[in-house]
């Protein structure tokens, strides 16, 4: 296993999301019938099975729903980042998004803390990560 971090793999369900990220826009599907904002991306609304959705631009603000601190790397690309935080961020628009909390010590993070998106540019891609808000 090499030490290059994995990059987004584009498929028919996630393409619009990652293209939005490349423009530093956090975009999610919103059902045009029931209004449910969904993540992970999917062909139809899990609430009402309606297939038509608009892409809304999320505020990028939310709170830490849960988080963990990696003390071992399961992939060599992340060895230098240890210890690092993976969190479920509950966005203001509703969906929970799995990402990293960056710019702080792992011990600073707690559930329900407010966060906002920051962009980590990697070549043609950009990964939405989050930082703690005061």
């Amino acid at each position, binding site marked *: 296993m090499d030490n290059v971090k994995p990059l987004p*793999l584009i498929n028919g369900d*996630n393409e619009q999301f990652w293209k939005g990220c490349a423009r530093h826009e956090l975009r999610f599907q919103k059902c045009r019938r029931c209004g449910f904002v969904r993540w992970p991306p999917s062909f139809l609304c899990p609430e009402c099975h309606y297939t038509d959705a608009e892409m809304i631009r999320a505020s990028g603000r939310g709170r830490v729903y849960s988080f963990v601190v990696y003390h071992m790397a399961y*992939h060599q690309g992340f060895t230098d980042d240890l210890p690092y935080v993976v969190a479920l961020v509950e966005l203001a628009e509703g969906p929970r998004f799995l990402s990293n909390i960056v710019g702080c010590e792992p011990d600073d993070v707690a559930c329900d803390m407010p966060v906002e998106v920051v962009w980590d540019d990697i070549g043609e891609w950009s990964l939405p990560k989050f930082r703690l808000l005061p």
Partner: protein
Amino acid sequence: MKPSNGCAVVGVGYTSQGRVPGRTMLSFHVEAAAQAIADAGLTGKDIDGLICYRHFPAATGEPDVTPYLVAEHLGISPTYLSQEANCARSHLLHAIAALEAGECNYVVISYGHNALSSDSILKLLYQKGSEEMVFGHFGATADYALAARRAMHLFGTGPETWKHIAVGQRKWANLNPRAMHHGRPMTFDDYFNSRLVVEPFRLFDNCLITDGGRACVVTTVERARDLPHRPVRIMGFGHHHPSSGVQRARHLAGPTGAKRAGERALRMAGVALSDIDACEIYDCFTYTVEITLQDLGFFGPGEGADWFAGGRIEPGGAMPVNTSGGLLSESYQMGLTPVTEAVMQLMGRCGDRQMGPATRTKEPEVILCTDNGGTLQSCACYVFGRE
């Protein structure tokens, strides 16, 4: 929901387990199945149903383990043949349905994996979608740690609760010569001194990774009476699959599938929690044991620390849990670790760890058992009783 009084487990198959290099995944399935068939007093010619535990990525240089291959290597051509693609844990339900429909007479359920010595598990880790991998998120430990952290926040659980589970189960493993951790006692200090893996989990909150296999044979109670071992009746069962993964899940801190699965199993069996003599709980992580017992109704949210304290689940305790050592301290044979242990305890074949006078516990008549898949995405619950 109709009561199911008709089926019983009549044989158990073990293999060598732990670190067993040089063995294929397929060889463990086949060895475990053959051992279970012989243990039930049967031959391959009697077997007309085969259900294999989940499909794993093939280790490099090995064939994909399909139920065709397992059947071929056992020399059988069953009327019912299946394998789960993932973790839904419906094997016993399939077996019962095939038996009660009259489609089968003797069904084998098998599991095998060379998880410790091959690269299969690594391949499994890297099957996660890129939406998670790009953030350095891999594998079951971190998913369950996310669930456990939310539970810490909501009802105040944590290592002070989980230490009782890790240490209690290790005491059972030390009575079980087959256990990977046999001869390795653990203290609370040992638990706290084990390294952090994915916080809040330490190494000793994690289940083992095992080379090995396990199997059992299921038949009707009527046929079971002609076989060598005292049959273990499947008194009740229930299943529930919350299904959603960690990002969309609403059940990470409970109620998990164990709540509905447990209610259904107990109702079908016609028993209450107070009738249960022991529990064999799928324990991929210490937290899984806590949240499962909590959702089954043994204690309220956050009361686990008190409930587990004082050795309740240990040898000599009032409610033995995971009496082989479980996935944490015996070996990882998926749901067949808890299922086969429940069966062996009720058959009275557990040697030094046998419930009863030898372990200063109640003679077991009724044992509750769970199997759990995904990140708390599936739960199967069974109530087993002495026939």
